[in-house]
């Protein structure tokens, strides 16, 4: 494996670690959201959760294809503080997606070839999910 290949796989592994964290946190946020009193938020969280699970799978497949062991999930992650209301849960989920977008944007130049393209595709998905959580479109998401 060349240095460039190694750096590219490192970027994929870093993205995978982000997805592990996002899945854990979104699961916790979804568990605190009422589908009857906040149906739009519950739906957005569920869609985001599924999207992150798909991203995790796509990234893990890429790492395995490179002949490496995918980075494992931690047993526990820090949850956002003060998530007692639907508004605060929505805000926490939006921050999560904004952070995910920024992370993907920082990782993309470190990857090469199809790894980079995958990271940009996942960046696009993360940016789009921000809108489901109340964000406005911006000219340069993640910056």
């Amino acid at each position: 494996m060349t240095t460039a290949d190694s750096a590219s796989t490192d970027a994929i592994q870093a993205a995978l670690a982000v997805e592990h964290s996002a899945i854990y946190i979104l699961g916790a946020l979804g568990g605190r959201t009422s589908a009857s009193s906040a149906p739009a938020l519950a739906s957005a969280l569920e869609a985001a959760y599924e999207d992150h699970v798909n991203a995790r799978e796509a990234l893990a497949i890429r790492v395995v294809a490179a002949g490496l062991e995918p980075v494992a999930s931690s047993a526990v992650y820090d949850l956002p503080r003060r998530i007692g209301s639907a508004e605060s849960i929505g805000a926490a989920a939006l921050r999560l997606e904004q952070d995910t977008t920024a992370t993907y944007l920082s990782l993309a130049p470190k990857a090469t070839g199809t790894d980079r393209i995958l990271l940009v595709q996942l960046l696009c998905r993360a940016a789009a999910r921000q809108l489901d959580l109340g964000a406005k479109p911006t000219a340069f998401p993640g910056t």
Partner: protein
Amino acid sequence: MLSRRTAVALAVVTPLAASACSASETLNPVKAPPPSTPPAPANPDQSVIDATVAEILGADEGAPAAFVELHRIHIEALAPTKGVQAATTGRWQERQLALVTTLTSAAGHAADPQLITLLASAAAAQQQLLHGRGLA
């Protein structure tokens, strides 16, 4: 500043040259080389930029104002070569979807990390607008 070695060499050569010139007026005067500016280094990503901007321009026709405004911002940031022509086919929704793919692919092929970031973020912005209208 001249080095000691160069200064010494000039001191030796100059009288000889002057003497040679005065001895023969038929010699052609030595012409100074024409002033020239070195060519600007070519941007290896310029073809990626121009092809991408052609797609952005192509996505303009018939697109809602929000898309056109975003296109202008991205074109300005990409700094294409003058005279890039729009590449246009299909409905504006299809062209807009294709533009996200184009920007993603261009980010995959670019060499400059700053350009990669710019193209990737631009792809995400276009995706946001499409997603906001239920188109992606």
